[in-house]
């Protein structure tokens, strides 16, 4: 138990078990293959948003270019498995390592920027990546995309089966969640939060702020790459529009809606936005006869509303009553104890 407590300390165990239970239960409840696909995509995107949450919510650095890292993972997997016939697993790892180093090298100069300038620089990276995958068409297939990416298989189980892939994706997402939770609690997490509050003060305490900023940027990029590789092997086809800045902004909205200050918020936000996306499409198409990317308009509205009324995100709304309930319980227990001790006297 002590080992488990080290990883899933204190009040983290219950929500984690709840999430595991939910993930195990959903395949029995959800019969529609369409919704199942969305659940898989939520798992994939959650890996990206978890990393982004560490970067934005904890270290206080913004990125509007994570779709590029998502794309680097997807294209590395795609190209290495189709053109070079490499094992998908090896390609996935190579993708993550490559992305980590690319993000690390990019991070050194751009993380010296702050606020809007950093946002623009990361946006620039995303655009450069988009142009590169369009231009390097011999390798990436250009605008037509890359087809015939093999599916993953694990211990002889073909992950083309949706159920298997669902469990595989969510296992990975849960592992990333565990890692993130532990980073947040560790000394590193404390340093990241202090960078968020005041870089100067953190530096005067002897922290090499740049190293931490670049490292968390690279780590979150590596998470995005992992998700990208999974995406490529699941859909078995990648094309440039998936990795444009609109996707980066979508990731950002997911984090903001869930609440950047909490790792759990990333998963919540991803889930909410993914389902909202489908609802908007469905309602827009059947009732208003609109097709195309209507959701963009709604996203804009969501950002404004979230910033105005829920700057801490949905997670804050959920966690607040739970905390109040806990406090009431504590007070009750305390008063009960006091009564007993008084009777004793």
């Amino acid at each position, binding site marked *: 138990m002590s080992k488990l407590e080290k990883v899933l300390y204190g009040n983290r165990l219950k929500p984690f078990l709840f999430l595991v239970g939910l993930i195990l239960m959903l395949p029995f409840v959800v019969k529609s293959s369409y919704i199942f696909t969305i659940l898989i995509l939520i798992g994939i995107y959650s890996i990206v948003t978890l990393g982004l949450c560490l970067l934005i919510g904890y270290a206080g650095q913004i990125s509007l270019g994570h779709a590029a890292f998502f794309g680097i993972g997807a294209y590395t997997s795609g190209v290495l498995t189709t053109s070079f016939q490499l094992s998908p697993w090896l390609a996935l790892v190579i993708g993550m390592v490559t992305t980590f180093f690319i993000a690390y090298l990019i991070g050194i100069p751009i993380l010296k920027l702050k606020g809007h300038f950093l946002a623009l620089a990361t946006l620039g990276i995303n655009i450069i990546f988009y142009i590169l995958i369009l231009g390097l068409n011999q390798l990436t297939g250009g605008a037509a995309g890359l087809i015939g990416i093999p599916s993953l298989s694990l211990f002889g189980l073909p992950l083309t089966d949706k159920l298997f892939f669902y469990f595989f994706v969510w296992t990975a997402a849960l592992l990333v969640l565990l890692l993130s939770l532990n980073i947040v609690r560790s*000394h590193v997490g*404390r*340093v990241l*939060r*202090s960078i*968020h*509050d*005041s870089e*100067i*003060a*953190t*530096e*005067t*305490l*002897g*922290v*090499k702020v740049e190293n931490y900023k670049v490292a968390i940027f690279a780590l979150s990029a590596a998470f995005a790459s992992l998700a990208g590789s999974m995406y490529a092997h699941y859909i078995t086809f990648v094309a440039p529009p998936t990795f444009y800045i609109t996707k980066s902004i979508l990731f950002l909205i997911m984090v903001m809606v869930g609440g950047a200050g909490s790792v759990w918020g990333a998963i919540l936000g991803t889930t909410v936005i993914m389902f909202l996306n489908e609802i908007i499409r469905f309602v827009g198409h059947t009732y208003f006869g609109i097709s195309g990317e209507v959701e963009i308009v709604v996203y804009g509205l969501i950002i404004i509303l979230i910033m105005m009324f829920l700057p801490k995100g949905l997670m804050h709304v959920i966690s607040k009553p739970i905390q109040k309930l806990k406090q009431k319980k504590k007070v009750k227990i305390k008063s009960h104890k006091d009564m007993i001790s008084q009777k004793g006297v």
Partner: protein
Amino acid sequence: MLKVDGVSTHIGKIKILHEIYFQVEKGQIVSIIGANGAGKSTLLNTLAGLYRPTSGTITLENDVISGYPANKVVEKGLSLVPEGRQIFSNLTVKENLLLGMFSKYYKEKKLAEENLTKILDMFPSLKKHLKNLGGNLSGGEQQMLAIGRGLMSNPKIILLDEPSMGLAPKIVYEILDTLMIIKEDLGTMVILVEQNVKAALKVCDQAYVIDQGRIIINGTRDEISSNPQVISAYLGIKSAGA
């Protein structure tokens, strides 16, 4: 002993500090006073390694500390409490303090606990707030926390950039009292930068007046307090000569 030997600092193309010379002896509190924009904060930031001096050297007990980045300077024993306190408002008081020992945290966790008790004994008002967020403290308590955080790394010298900023006079004197404790109990050298000249001259042993990046007057506390120029310019009293 901290020795500043002909230090000049440029920010961009503008020369802010012009060949500054001064020193702090062991067990001394040194005040640096001056008007807005005189270069006080630039001087402290240069000492702490946030700016690199363009000429001159800074030595702390025979160890050259100029030219090193801020994180190395802290390891060499110089701690800066930056202007405006810069408390980590989303971290608890305990976490704020523990970050003060960042450079030694992994190697010496026991020492961290010891230092924590030592600092809390020095600032008892922080004890009851240990699990509260730093941002929820009052201004005076935040300043105590900032000083406590600066002391966590067992520095040889601590630099305070306007600790009286935005605080009630009574609390300013409480903080200055703690400086005396730091000096006497810990033997730490203190450099105090202040606009509140009256308060600064109450606690210091030596004072330097800085104007447009140059030290124009220096002397012991009594010399500075009775200097007609200081009296008319900084204490707001018309001196007999003026």
